[in-house]
């Protein structure tokens, strides 16, 4: 309050209280100055998830997980800006641009699906903002080049899951495999991955059929699969629409083994599928069978803790692995933000975003709900063998496969 503002319009002869007016004029400026110093100490996390559209069963639990994330860390407040991209890559890119240029976020969380996350790569790289994706494909973070150095992801790679799946198939002695999958990017991804791994496990994919998520009947596809008489059938689908082929296979008298992918891990799937799912195998993150893990497994404590927190907020039995993937993003930020703050960079600046990226890349031995994460310059996913288990559906629940 010691500087005197030049004020040529104030004629002391006409305005005896000129000095007081000058004081009042300075107050808003002072207030703004104070507020802006407070604002720079706030970290902004931009979130774009698919809470509507075909991937809503992934996005809604992830958004619930974001709602549970703490609002302060290391004395700095965090603001979450959550947007919906309706499972559409164009909208995801629009949201990312809006978050980065209008809201000036320090990190972007999202999106829930692979096509959306891939579309966002260019935008985050161009604006040098770190991105933590919650989608499954390896291609989002591999190879770590100039664009992907800014991108990290929390779910196990689909390649990871397919390796476990194909290994299980090979170990069980299955040779002829049939696949019924979605006719979209998800189904295509699974089919391609299994195709790559099949020769290694001496599996022979004899028949591949597709169906649409909203189909009312898959009789034709199932008849085609049955005609090939495979030892095992993989249903490459996610969410409750995966029940339809399983039910039709059982109705048509299929006696072989049914496999699912990790996209079905939610309790609505069990509810809708009922007895038709009995005995099916699928690869999954350890969080769904946390109770059965060995006590010495560090993942057990984190997984059970998150399960309790999530179910307290959203109801018993609401836990699913997508919410856990969302939560893992917070665990990563919890480790990386203090590291970035310690470098002295202020949130909202490019230096802070670069420091945050370095902090994320430097994560070592972080125990998350799905696995133990070790990031490196060449691996922006960080999970190892401990991050996936084979699960069997027995008596309408998920159990660890023996």
């Amino acid at each position: 309050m010691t500087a005197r503002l030049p004020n040529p319009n104030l004629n002391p002869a006409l305005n005896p209280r000129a000095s007081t007016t000058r004081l009042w004029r300075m107050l808003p400026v002072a207030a703004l100055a104070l507020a802006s110093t407070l604002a720079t100490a706030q970290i902004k996390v931009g979130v774009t998830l698919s809470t509507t559209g075909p991937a809503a069963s992934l996005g809604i639990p992830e958004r619930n997980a974001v709602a549970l994330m703490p609002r302060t860390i290391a004395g700095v407040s965090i603001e979450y800006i959550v947007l919906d991209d309706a499972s559409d890559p164009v909208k995801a890119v629009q949201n990312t641009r809006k978050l980065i240029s209008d809201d000036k976020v320090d990190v972007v969380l999202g999106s829930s699906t692979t096509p959306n996350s891939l579309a966002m790569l260019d935008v985050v790289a161009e604006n040098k903002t770190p991105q933590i994706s919650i989608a499954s494909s390896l291609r989002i973070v591999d190879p770590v080049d100039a664009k992907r150095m800014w991108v990290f992801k929390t779910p196990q790679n689909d390649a990871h899951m397919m390796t476990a799946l194909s290994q299980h198939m090979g170990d069980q002695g299955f040779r002829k495999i049939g696949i019924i999958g979605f006719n979209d990017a998800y189904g295509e991804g699974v089919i391609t991955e299994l195709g790559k791994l099949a020769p290694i496990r001496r599996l022979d994919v004899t028949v591949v059929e597709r169906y649409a998520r909203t189909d009312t009947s898959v009789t034709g596809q199932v008849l085609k699969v049955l005609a090939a008489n495979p030892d095992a059938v993989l249903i490459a689908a996610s969410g409750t629409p995966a029940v339809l082929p399983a039910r039709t296979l059982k109705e048509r008298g299929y006696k072989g083994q049914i496999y699912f992918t990790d996209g079905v891990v939610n309790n609505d799937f069990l509810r809708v599928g009922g007895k038709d799912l009995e005995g099916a195998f699928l690869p999954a993150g350890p969080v769904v069978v946390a109770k059965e893990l060995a006590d010495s497994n560090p993942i057990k404590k984190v997984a059970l803790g998150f399960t309790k927190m999530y179910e307290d907020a959203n109801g018993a039995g609401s836990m699913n692995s997508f919410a856990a993937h969302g939560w893992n993003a917070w665990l990563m930020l919890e480790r990386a933000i203090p590291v970035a703050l310690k470098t002295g960079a202020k949130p909202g600046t490019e230096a802070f975003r670069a420091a945050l990226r370095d902090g994320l890349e430097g994560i070592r031995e972080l125990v998350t709900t799905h696995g133990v994460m070790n990031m490196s310059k060449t691996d922006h996913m960080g999970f190892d063998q401990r991050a996936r288990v084979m699960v069997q559906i027995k008596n309408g629940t998920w159990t660890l496969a023996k």
Partner: protein
Amino acid sequence: MDASIAAILTLDGITTGAVYALLAISLVLVFTVTRVIYIPAGEFVAFGALTMAALQAGRAPPTALFTLGLGVMVFALDALAAVRAGSARGLLRSAGWNLVFPLAVWWLASLPALQQAGQLVQVALTLAVLVPAGPMLYRLCFAPVQQASVLTLLIVSVALHFALLGVGLVMFGAEGSRTLPLTDARWAIGAVQLSGQNLAVVLTSLAAMGALAAFFGRTLTGKALRATAVNRIGAQLVGIGPARAGRLAFAMAGVLSVFSGVLIGPITTIYYESGFLIGLKGFVGAIIGGLAGYPLAVAGALLVGLIEAFSSFWASAYKEVIVFSLIVPVLAWRSLTHRGMDEEDPE
């Protein structure tokens, strides 16, 4: 492909074709009476199945609140009109249909005794919950623009479809449900397995079509609807109000769509988005009938069902493409053989 596989596929195609036929009829009905291409009919299919599922799970269906909400909006419009006209005539009747009836149905649907009282009661409750929403939507969205062109009405229809999708997601969540089958009976005829549920679908569809034919041919209201479909201004001149005809058409389309949903619920998992594609395939069937005649629409819908079943066997990756490409030759043939009376000409 041998005879038994062909037989199984034919059976499957006829079952789904029967459901598409019900939708095709409702689309033709609404279009001929009101010139609206009723895309939200698909949403009613999904809501019908999900309401049944909610009742069977022992929960009050959220669609009852949805209908109540619509009723409140319609009543507000009626009250405004009454205030402007300075007379409360008809306001009591409006309150009865738009407020008291949905409220009563909501209360009934939350009673556990009725929720568990058997399939017929559940179907009746589902119809009571959803059918009134049809005329209410007509009153709210289409009646104000009833004189507009078909294109404008189509745009309103598509907008309504998106709005209902959002409402469906909020009401039912992203995951789907199945309903319990009407019957678990199964008969084996040779290699073909006939399930009681599929038979029930075909028989009820036939019964619904028969009832509709009787309604149009024998009752005064049915004939009035047919008159409006043939020539709207002429029907108005002889005392058949277009608004009343529109509401009736929407109500009947609602009955047919909700019924389809109830029939298809046990066969496949329905979730909030499933209705759109089912409605669209019914629309393809209706297009084959030229959006004018019922028998052709039913035949077209059956054809769609059969083609879908067979192409899901031969080329499952291209099934959707094949089914929707059916429209192209049909439209081409129709426009080449059309005798040139423009729909937009003054009647």
